[in-house]
């Protein structure tokens, strides 16, 4: 279907079901239950899942296929956000102006940074991209304050021109009248599901971008990129110049990042310089590795995993813990809370770090490898039951 083989079509359908059903799938616990703490089906987090999913898919096109590890992709994220907010300030709140511009400016930045950085490979390439990203961050944070509004973050003021703003137009980001932050809530028994316009906008774009990534992965161009990763020298000997291919991959993944940054500003009309910091660049590397480098679905899973921890675990505090363990005797309750305390709230980094270590050590292929192993476990058991009668040759 649509130029995809059977397996990819199935994957695409799974992604579509996950993306469109997220508001229900991510809210498995009734609103009043104690487990509601772990529900992730609220608009802001779902939007982040989709946006960082796009970011990670794009990053994977560069890192997963060519093996070039960029530590500066957050710069493109920031450039995308600033483009969109500037379009709000100059034209109006319709995201149709900002998003294409975000992709184009991020692409232009990527071309510039990529052209210089790709002269080196390996660790030198990583350091160059990191340096460029830190430069961009510092420029945005203080030097270019007239353009970026520095530490406060770029936002829309009532005195901004907004030349296209109509009389009845929504006063927050929208797509031809589809207001991003409006949502309809549906209560069903003990559950409440929130269907948010902004989330579905992101989800549709995520599906399109995922489809695009599949086509790139399966194209002759994708094969060239894999060739760069597997043996750059041999590729050169066969008479092919790898650099244009690598640069193209760099620009494409930069454009993905720009789109993700643009969508962040489309959901929340503010662009802060922090999203260009090196920690943000590092985060997307973690997402890709955690999910499974070079796989299609891995980066999306990794993005969801990290964002879930950041937003859910960081909000569990001691009071909630005491609530959970109140059935224990006092001394024991305090002891259990004391043990768990370092891993929740501000300690979510610690929990994530431990999980990351476990994944890298035991599942080098990321969450995708975990899934494959589970699948193998299930299917091999089935095989066993079929093959019980078969005699095995002795060693």
């Amino acid at each position, binding site marked *: 279907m649509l130029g995809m083989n059977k397996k990819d079509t199935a994957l695409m359908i799974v992604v579509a079901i996950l993306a469109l059903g997220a508001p229900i799938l991510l809210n498995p616990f009734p609103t009043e239950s104690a487990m509601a703490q772990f*529900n992730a089906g*609220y*608009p*802001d*987090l779902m939007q*982040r899942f989709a946006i960082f999913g796009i970011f990670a898919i794009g990053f994977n096109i560069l890192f997963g296929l060519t093996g070039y590890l960029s530590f500066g992709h957050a710069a493109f994220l920031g450039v995308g956000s600033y483009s969109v907010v500037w379009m709000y300030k100059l034209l109006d709140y319709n995201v149709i102006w900002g998003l294409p511009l975000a992709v184009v400016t991020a692409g232009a930045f990527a071309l510039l940074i990529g052209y210089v950085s790709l002269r080196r490979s390996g660790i030198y390439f990583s350091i160059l991209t990191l340096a460029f990203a830190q430069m961009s961050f*510092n420029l945005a*944070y*203080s030097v270019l304050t007239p353009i970026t509004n*520095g*530490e*406060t*973050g770029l*936002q829309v*003021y*009532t*005195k901004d021109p907004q030349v296209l703003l109509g009389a009845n137009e929504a006063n*927050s980001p929208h797509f031809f009248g589809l207001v991003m*932050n409006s949502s*309809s*809530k*549906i*209560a*069903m*028994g003990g559950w*409440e599901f*929130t269907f948010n316009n902004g989330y579905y906008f992101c989800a549709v774009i995520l599906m399109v971008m995922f489809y695009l990534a599949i086509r790139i992965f399966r194209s002759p161009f994708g094969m060239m990129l894999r060739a760069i990763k597997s043996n750059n020298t041999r590729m050169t000997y066969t008479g092919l110049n790898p650099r244009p291919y690598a640069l193209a991959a760099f620009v494409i993944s930069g454009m993905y990042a720009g789109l993700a940054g643009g969508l962040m500003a489309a959901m*929340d*009309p*503010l662009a*802060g310089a*922090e*999203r260009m910091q090196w920690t943000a660049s590092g985060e997307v590397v973690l997402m890709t590795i955690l999910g499974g480098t070079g796989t299609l679905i891995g980066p999306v899973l990794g993005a969801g995993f990290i964002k879930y921890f*950041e*937003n859910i675990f*960081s*909000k569990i*505090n001691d009071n909630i813990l005491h609530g959970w363990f109140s059935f224990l005797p006092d001394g024991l309750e305090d002891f259990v809370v004391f043990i768990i305390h370092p891993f929740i*709230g*501000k300690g979510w*980094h610690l929990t994530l770090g431990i999980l990351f270590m476990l994944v890298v050590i035991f599942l080098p292929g990321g969450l995708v490898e975990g899934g494959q192993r589970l699948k193998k476990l299930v299917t091999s058991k089935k095989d066993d039951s079929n093959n019980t009668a078969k005699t095995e040759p002795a060693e």
Partner: protein
Amino acid sequence: MSKTTMTRRGVLKTGAVAGAGVALPTIFTASSAAAYTNEPTGSTVKFGFNVPQTGPYADEGMDELRAQELAIEHINGMGDGGALNTFSSKALGGDGVLGKKVEFVTGDTQTKSDAARASAKSMIEKDGVVMINGGSSSGVAVAVQGLCQEAGIIFMAGLTHSNDTTGKDRKANGFRHFFNAYMSAAALAPVLAKEYGTDRRAYHLTADYTWGWTQQESIAAATEAMGWETVNNVLTPLSATDFSSYIAPVLNSGADVLVLNHYGGNMVNSLTNAIQFGLRDKMVNGKQFEIVVPLYSELMAAGAGENIKGVYGSMNWNWQLQDEGTKAFVQSFGKKYGRPPSNSAQTCYAQTLLYADAVARAGSFNPCAVAEALEGFEFDGLGNGPTLYRADDHQCFKDVLVMKGRDNPTTEYDTLEVVEKTPVAQVTYAPDHAMFGGAEASLGTCNPGA
């Protein structure tokens, strides 16, 4: 051929399933239209405390959280009631707010605008809070204030000292109890003139972001008005930890006062560097060289240790004040946590009580009704003396403290002494002051959301 067997039980079952199927759409309509964002319907109401729990201001954040927890206790009628007993408004009866028990959720701002907005959004969308309080940075305060305005809930700012929060970035749904850079400058300048004379030459080192700039602008204007000369202003990156290369040129510039527009770890490091260079032992232009730190905090003072002896600065509040409100709060805080509260803790405590009180007076959690109750509200008994919440820009006007590093501290908390309580009249400015966005700045209209 198919065979149909109809039993009584089968008919009943089919009927029940069909009935449920027909009734199903009605549960979709069960969601009622709320009058405003997160209207509390049950027996409880949730407040959101968004404070830095990681990053450079984590210590301040944890102290804010302690105070907020204490405020909730007092509102719900537990503990000794603290400053509720001395508060001039008696609308809160110690039984929650409007008969609802107050609960709270916490979030980590990480002192980053993006992270702060994400955690605030999750509190609004997931936990259904009606108010957000806390924070320890002006950039974060401005960002979260904008978010609350869009979402339609009230933002009660924590520690934010930039003029912009209630200046060019002021919002109808945002309120600030903490003082600002202009007030610091207005309070400090006369004291500096008295102590150091009116013919000084000042050299500014300024943290390179909005708070630093507004503070530098305010201090330079106030000191120049009384005759000082500003020799130079050097911007330092926020991430800097070693300021030696910035301190060295100060000696050759002919300046005799160094103003450090730094906060938190920046200030601790720059002051330490300045002392190591022996600046305060130098004589320049026939005068003793002096250092000024316009914004002080207890945690910074503790970090700088010996080095702050005799250095002037300003504060919003200090636990050593002797009024009834301060005594009640400090006693209550000390009993629970075994330490005196910091001035960022006090502002969050006061903001939480002020919000709850405004709801009680307004008789509704509707943000527009609450904002109306807060606008122009005059109160006393929370530790800052008589205070006004000005309606024009949602800024509190109250006395400002001029502080000095104590020469002989007796305990680890006794590092600063109150030099002067600058009366509120001296630090008041017009709502359309040029440093506060001028005539263009406006609150906009109150947004109840929904």
